[in-house]
């Protein structure tokens, strides 16, 4: 992750989109609810005004050509509001002012005296007004009574405020819920991606097989590309492995031929200088092949150390296998490999790496041990799984004990012995990759003592 260029977050983008959408919807909801409720509330006030005006009109009558108007108390009682809204009215007969507020002029009544609504300002207050009319028919007269009734809108304003607040709560509640759901949805949407990441991260270093678990359609192309990339990578790794193998084969086989011939030749050559030349040739071949081998091993170990394939292993078993493998070589020098262990030593680690480290340590001991001596291998479980290799050679030169495990360092006493200097480095790298250490020491009785602990 450290070296990946990060630009934004999918989850955040998703969340942002969803939250933005929720905010927009919340605001729309707020305005829609408020507008609708406002209409309903206004209609309520209009209805009451119209009913009140109608009741006033109902109370009008013509008696002997004179209009008699007894405004019913209920007409104004019904206009009572919690906010104590002001009430204004005007009654006109055929346009002539009869009673009420002379200045109050509302909308014209509709055809047939239908109530008409209008909002305007009266005496400095915004009012809602209704005008309705009714035609009174007397014996000889026909006169139109028009009632204009106006009411301030304080109660409505309070109601609207409440509605606004409730609508705001509703909008905000919706928004909050949507945000919570967005979070859940974004997480749910991201989860397959996280699972994929997890499954990539958990893979072993050699696992380049395609992903086969089903993924959402949107991730199909990604996983497809990933699979195809890994396929190509696998192929190219395979190819490079094949190439290395082929190259090694091509180089080492002729070297082996040369070496075999040289060995054969040595038996037929008697002159000392010729023999020396042939021996040098053989040793040069050995040295180069061994160096190449250890370089490859070291590269492989460096790679594996980054991706430890930890498994349960028995250290004793592992060392025993190496002893078996190497005993022919020990035999050649009449060396004895002695393994000391009490029962199994189980530990967690990368078997291949540990094998390689142990092999290098034994190799070293075999190289430096004098003929017909014993190399002791001790495997212990406490305090940590440890392999100690002791030989009866010269031991390490005391001056450079600290630097021996550095790359390509060889002991001063290594002259005349074939080696690349990587053996101890490999063992140390392996120990450190397992959180352990490699300690070099000389025994009191002489001879090297190498302690590999994991």
């Amino acid at each position, binding site marked *: 992750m450290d070296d990946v260029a990060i630009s934004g977050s999918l989850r955040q983008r998703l969340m942002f989109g969803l939250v933005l959408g929720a905010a927009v919807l919340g605001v729309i909801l707020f305005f829609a609810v408020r507008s609708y409720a406002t209409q309903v509330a206004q209609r309520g006030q209009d209805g009451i005004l119209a009913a009140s005006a109608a009741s006033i009109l109902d109370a009008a009558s013509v008696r002997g050509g004179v209009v008699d108007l007894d405004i019913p108390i209920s007409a104004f009682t019904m206009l009572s509001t919690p906010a104590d809204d002001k009430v204004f009215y005007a009654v006109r007969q055929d346009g002539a002012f009869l009673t009420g507020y002379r200045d109050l002029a509302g909308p014209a009544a509709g055809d047939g005296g239908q109530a008409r609504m209008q909002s305007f300002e009266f005496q400095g207050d915004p009012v809602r007004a209704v005008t309705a009319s009714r035609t009174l028919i007397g014996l000889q007269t026909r006169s139109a009574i028009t009632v204009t009734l106006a009411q301030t809108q304080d109660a409505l304003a309070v109601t609207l405020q409440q509605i606004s607040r409730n609508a705001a709560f509703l909008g905000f509640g919706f928004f909050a819920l949507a945000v919570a759901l967005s979070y859940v949805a974004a997480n749910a949407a991201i989860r397959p991606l996280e699972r994929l990441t997890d499954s990539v991260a958990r893979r072993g270093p050699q696992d380049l097989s395609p992903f086969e678990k089903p993924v959402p359609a949107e991730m199909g192309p990604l996983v497809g590309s990933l699979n195809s990339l890994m396929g190509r990578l696998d192929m190219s790794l395979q190819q490079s492995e094949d190439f*290395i*193998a*082929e190259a*090694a*084969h*091509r*180089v*080492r*086989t*002729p*070297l*082996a*031929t*040369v*070496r*075999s*011939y040289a*060995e*054969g030749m*040595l*038996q037929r050559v*008697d002159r000392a200088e010729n*023999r020396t030349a042939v*021996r040098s040739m*053989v*040793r040069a*071949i*050995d040295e180069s*092949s061994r160096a*190449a*081998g*250890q370089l*490859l*091993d070291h590269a*492989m170990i460096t790679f594996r150390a980054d991706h430890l394939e930890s498994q349960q292993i028995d250290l004793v078993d592992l060392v025993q296998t190496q002893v078996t*493998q190497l*005993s*022919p*070589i020990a*035999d*050649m*020098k*009449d060396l004895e490999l002695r393994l000391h262990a009490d029962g199994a030593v189980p530990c967690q680690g990368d078997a*291949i790496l540990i*094998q*390689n480290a142990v*092999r290098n340590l034994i190799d070293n001991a075999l*190289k430096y041990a004098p*003929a*017909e001596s014993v190399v002791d291998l001790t495997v212990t479980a406490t305090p940590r799984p440890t392999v100690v290799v002791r030989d009866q050679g010269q031991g390490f030169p005391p001056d450079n004990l600290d630097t021996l495990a550095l790359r390509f360092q060889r002991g001063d006493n290594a002259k*005349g*012995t*074939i080696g690349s200097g990587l053996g101890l480095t490999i063992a140390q790298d392996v120990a450190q990759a397992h959180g352990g250490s490699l300690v070099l020491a000389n025994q009191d009785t002489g001879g090297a003592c190498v302690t590999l602990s994991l």
Partner: protein
Amino acid sequence: MKFLLVEDSEALAHAVSSRMRQDGHVIDHAANLADARAFVAGTEYDLILLDIMLPDGDGRAFLKQHRASDLDTPVIVLTARSQVSDRIDSLDLGADDYITKPFDHAELEARCRAVLRRTSGQAQTTIAMGGLVFDPVAGQLTVRGQDVALRNRELRLLEVFLNAPGQLFSKQKLTDRLFSFDHDVSENAIEVYVGRLRKHLEQSDLKITTFRGLGYRLDHG
């Protein structure tokens, strides 16, 4: 001993074969897997030396096939690769041991001996001569019915002499056969081993004669 060497490099095969024959072994050479299968089908071998990379396929495939069959001929893999994983791969597939190219002939010999000793329960070929019986595979020597413990280099020295009784070997030649190349060994070191072997042979009818300045020879009576 009868060996089958499966190796596509004619030159290497020739070099190895000649060394093996020098040691008294019979060796067949197959340059590819097809030939190798034909040889294995027709002849019984004591040991197969198998190269991994062959022109007509992977030696490991042959190994797998070979192990699947009833034959239990031991196999030593000759590999150009030195990666641990590759070695282990070969072992998992049933190789009895492996050796990395280029190899020391002495090591090859040692490994062959070790594998044969591990795989064959009892002695197959023994040399009986002048009152001693020698099993080169098991590395056992009996002198007049008495077991004699030999060290590896003593054993190999005896083997060299027994393969060519009456032949004179220079110190140089014996040194070359006994020591690998990773150490400088003085030619006088061979005198120690010859001395030890003489002691072991005291009760037999065989003796090692010294020819000053020329070398040693195993003589009868």
